């Protein structure tokens, strides 16, 4: 009983339980279909490329994982969420493809039709991401606007600006050099490598410098941190900037994966996935302490849920229903009144036990 209680208090308890649940559903489904129970974990090499459902989830979940990094920092520092990430992703992808293909060009088939080298496009996308992050960050940190309201502006505008940049077209860049960022390096899918690199860099920075500590302290109490000598505003600003950068990277991966910039569909509903990843990772959406590893596990869990639903034959348009239910459940469990009720309940139980023993 005691060990169980200890286990449930661990921050990684929630994400790991979710992973186990998803795996169980998959195993039961496989067994029911007559395939091997461990079909889910089966990894093989086909046409010199790594294949298998697990690899597929890791690959497809990269964008959410990258977004979840930025979102974790934002949630922790400002106790609000950046809801513009999906739209910013789309804007960055459109900007990148617009730079490479040239304005108004809808399709590029070979490298010599490029208006600008790919590197310029990639850097452009990252700069655009940082720019969007700067915009959000300055509104939140320096003008003191509620995070969700401040990011609401780009949530609606970024996708529209992306459409404008692409001249209302879907820009196709069917060139292998561009497709590599969403494709394969050797036999490993590139998005996995990019996501891993992002996670590694950010976690190293957070561990090796005091940045992680600063972010948490600003999230726990903004005023106290300022009195203690931290530049609270600057730290919140940097978090939003990083979130924008992450959205830029995710945008590049997403557009490279489909070798085109589809402003209407890239990053659609991605903000919910990113927020869900943070919540699933055991992080409080009220800010303060955070756990990056939890968010990353949360991100891949969401992708596993999505993939499982596609396997079960649930259509793309219906999946948000399940995600919405999961979000509400998770957030409701974390809600202060519910927590207080649980505490009271268990205290009453313990008291009863005490009485019985006496």
């Amino acid at each position, binding site marked *: 009983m005691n060990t169980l209680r200890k286990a449930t208090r661990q921050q990684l308890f929630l994400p790991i339980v979710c992973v186990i649940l998803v795996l169980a559903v998959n195993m039961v489904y496989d067994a029911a279909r007559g395939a091997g129970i461990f079909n889910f974990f089966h990894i093989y090499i086909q046409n010199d490329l790594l294949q298998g459902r697990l690899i597929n989830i890791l690959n497809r979940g990269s964008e959410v994982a990258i977004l979840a990094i930025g979102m974790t920092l934002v949630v922790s520092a400002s106790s609000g*969420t950046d*809801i513009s990430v999906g739209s910013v992703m789309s804007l960055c992808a459109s900007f990148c493809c617009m730079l490479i293909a040239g304005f108004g060009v809808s399709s590029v088939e070979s490298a010599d039709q490029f208006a600008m080298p790919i590197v310029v496009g990639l850097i452009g996308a990252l700069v655009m991401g940082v720019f969007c992050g700067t915009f959000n960050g300055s*509104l939140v940190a320096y*003008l*003191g*606007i*509620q995070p*969700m*309201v*401040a990011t*609401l*502006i*780009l*949530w*609606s*505008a970024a*996708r*529209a*600006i992306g*459409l*404008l940049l692409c*001249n*209302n077209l879907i820009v196709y860049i069917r060139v292998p050099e561009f497709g590599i960022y969403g494709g394969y390096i050797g036999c490993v899918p590139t998005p996995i490598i990019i996501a891993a690199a992002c996670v590694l860099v950010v976690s190293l920075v957070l561990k090796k410098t005091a940045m992680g500590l600063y972010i948490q302290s600003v999230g726990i109490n903004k005023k106290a941190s300022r009195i203690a000598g931290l530049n609270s505003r600057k730290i919140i600003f940097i978090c939003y900037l990083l979130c924008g950068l992450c959205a830029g990277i995710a945008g590049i991966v997403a557009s490279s994966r489909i070798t085109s910039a589809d402003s209407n569909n890239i990053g659609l*509903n991605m903000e*919910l996935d990113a*927020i869900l990843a943070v919540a699933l990772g055991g992080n409080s*959406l009220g800010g303060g302490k955070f756990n990056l590893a939890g968010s990353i596990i949360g991100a891949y869990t969401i992708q596993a849920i999505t993939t499982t639903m596609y396997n079960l034959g649930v*259509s793309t*348009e*219906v*999946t*948000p*229903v*399940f*995600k*919405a*239910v999961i*979000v*509400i459940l998770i*957030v*409701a469990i974390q*809600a*202060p*009144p*519910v927590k207080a009720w649980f505490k009271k309940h268990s205290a009453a139980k313990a008291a009863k036990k005490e009485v019985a023993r006496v």
Partner: protein
Amino acid sequence: MKAPANAIKRRSGSINGHTLLMLITIVLFILLYAGGCIAYADKNFTRVQTFLNILRSSAGLICVTCGMTCVMLTGGIDISVGSLIALDCMILAMGMGDWGFSAVVSMVLVLVLGIAFGLFQGFCVGYLQIQPFIVTMAGMFFARGMTAVISTDQLSITAESSQWFYDLANYRIYLPFGGYLNKAGKMVMPYIGWGVVVSFAVLIVIFLVLRYTRFGRSLYAVGGNEQSAAMMGLNVKKTKMLAYVLASFLCSIGGICYAMNTMSANVNQATGLEMDAISSCVIGGTLLTGGVGNVLGSLFGVLINGTISSIVQTNGKLASSWPNILTAILLCFFIVLQSVFAILKDRKK
């Protein structure tokens, strides 16, 4: 002591920051409309009917915005409204079509759904103290997903499914003034539909409720300062919940008006309508932090939105994403203005 001092000031007629915001909005609307009239005088922009068409197409939005104002007065936000309208339209279309209900039953179904939806969201926000944004975001995805569960086809409400609803939607109420002579030399009178009448009825009722009833005043009190509202003996949780119920209910009324205007239903209907509603409120002077706002200002916010899209439509050459971008720019401008006012007010103290 702050609140009574403010009230006295308002009564004595001096302009404070919030009335100034609303004044800016009204002036902006007049400038925009006058600009449209001058630029597109040759494309019938000056006719009374053009203005009434803006009202007709935004009748649903006016209802939604009234509800949104109530929620924003408590310091919350409701972004599920666009999806809820899609769900409403889908239920209306399916109810009168495949399910074989009568128009009245379908409409009652939609209204009941709105209340139930609002009750759940309000419970989560009020009693479970979850951030309104997260709750209504989940609600938004839930409603959109449920729309897809019902049907992913492009449906339309036709005269065969319900003659009564069809007639109701196409009924024209002619105004006794503002007509013009058409080419045949006949006087053509401008007209509005029932949607406009309903939306204005909603607007007036909500205006009176906010100004003169206990519930309306407690909305302001909760938004202004939750703690002092609780100390005054108001039931903060219940007030918050009722605000969301009211918002979803008005959204359902708006959904019926919207369906009357479009006479169709599909999964992607009314995407981004929540954005229009929120920006209308903010442009109309409702503070996002709660406690300050007025449905009249919101009406002008809606009119500004409608005028922008009407101008873009009349122009014909501008890309369809321009209204979105322009609204976002306006929203940004007003949000920054609000926070500057707030900072100045803090300095004065």
